[in-house]
């Protein structure tokens, strides 16, 4: 078979997930972190889509998840807007006011 097999898709998904994770953990900018999360979610979606060969449920799940992601990003940006307003930065490092004392 000349086509790329299921496993390759899954590996791509894993790669997306892990590199998203790397971005989340290492980039300071909140938007960047969001991008990382998007990557991770896409990785997960890819898993679902790959398995949607069994029945349609996988695809449906993925569609719903895309919708949810959009909502999430919208909320995140709304909050980020507020944060920027108050902190004048969107670097997570600079958000360190909450703590003991």
């Amino acid at each position, binding site marked *: 078979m000349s086509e790329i097999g299921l496993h390759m898709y899954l590996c791509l998904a894993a790669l997306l997930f892990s590199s998203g994770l790397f971005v989340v953990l290492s980039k300071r900018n909140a938007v960047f*972190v969001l991008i990382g999360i998007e990557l991770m979610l896409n990785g997960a*979606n890819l898993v679902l889509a790959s398995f949607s060969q069994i029945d349609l449920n996988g695809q449906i799940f993925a569609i*719903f998840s895309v919708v949810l992601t959009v909502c*999430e990003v919208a*909320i995140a940006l709304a909050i980020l807007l507020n944060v920027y307003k108050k902190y004048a930065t969107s670097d997570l490092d600079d958000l360190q006011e909450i703590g003991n004392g």
Partner: protein
Amino acid sequence: MNLEDQLTEIINNLQFLKVESTLMLGAILLLVGGMITKSGILIKSVYAGVILLAFYFNWQGLAVGSTLSESLFLTSTSQHFTAIFLLSSLIILLYKRADEHATEFYFLILSLIVGSLFIMKANSFLVTYLAVELTSFGAYILTNFSFKKKAHEAGIKYLLFGALSSAIMLFGFGLIYGISGSFYLSELGSFDLELVGNAGILMMLFGLFFKASIVPLHVWVPATYQEAPNDATAILSIVPKLGALVLIQRIYSIVQSEWILNLCLILGMLTILSGVLSALRQSGARRMISFGAIAHSGFLFPFALILSETSIQAFWWYAVAYAIMNVAVFYFLEEFESRGLDRLEDFSGLGDNNPIMFVSVTVLLISLIGLPPVAGFTAKFFLFTTLWEQYQSDGQLIFIACLVVAVFATVISLFFYLRIPYYLFLVKEQTSRSIEFSFWTKFIATLFSIVLLLLFFVPQILTVMQQLLKSTP
């Protein structure tokens, strides 16, 4: 089955969505109402009406088993916990809340509850995921609702954690789905999940751990609880947490694998320990209580993993006690914070000032520690009993370990919970301040402590309540 039959059946089964539908429609009604009027009282009464109606429906309707094309799975446990959610969301009306954000606030609270109800009742992966996300969205937004600087910080952090854990969860669903081809929780038990499936379940559980604030997904709790408005925090600390635990209980009852038990109990112990140990060093009242709430998740956790009848009932009992304690404790914090009492030192020597209020607080804190004669003790007592009994029946040492950790943590929790009464009564006041509370506040405070005492002395109230829920008309 042809489409027509399917649709008819769905229409027939829609009645099982009565509670959720009521809440959702009520939420929309609230939103619409908010456009018409800014009157806080009106909004609150609509909210109360919706909750009461939902409560009525919850009391009325009971079906056990899967329904709506297996999307949902109803159990009596979920019905009981629905009652807890509704009641506690009713109680938060006692909190002071300016009319300014009332519409959106109560709308989001309702959405949060809907989400949690679906978490408990979800059967298909999709609904589970959506319910978790719905709950999270409500929670993310509510965290910002004090519109203070730090609130947004807490909000964005909460959201990032949440999104991450939902990504993990989604990946987990993908794996389970891929390996089993199944799309329903109730079918999990009928497959050999093997390694991949187990990893998927683990990743799925991570998402639930996040909701239930179990180690290591508890890190968002202190910041969120600290910065969200108090009434929102009360709900956040009760509703999603219990919902997730109920779902974990159901998942475990389906899968029942050894490793889940061990993993969860170990994480439960870690949760307890990390909660109490971290709380030791806090100097802000609310932050300390937040860590206490983490510890309580750990205390609640074993119930979800022990499937004896005792455990199920004790779970309900502990949950009720926990709900009442948390609603009460955040009520008090609200009252104190509005008078500038944030840090523990601020409480110095206030004990004489307003005995009724502060004695009630002390009663409440004792209950949180788990000492007699208040409900918290009975709850802990049931926890210990459950663990003992489970150990007695299957002899796994991990239950004893859990018991030891729980006992040990109870001692430590003495240290930090008691610091508030310590400052109140034992530390002498440097400058004389006068803190006044309204009669109404004092009345509510007393009521809370009376309820806590009553639950200790007449614990059967709750079983009777359970019975009442069961004997639907």
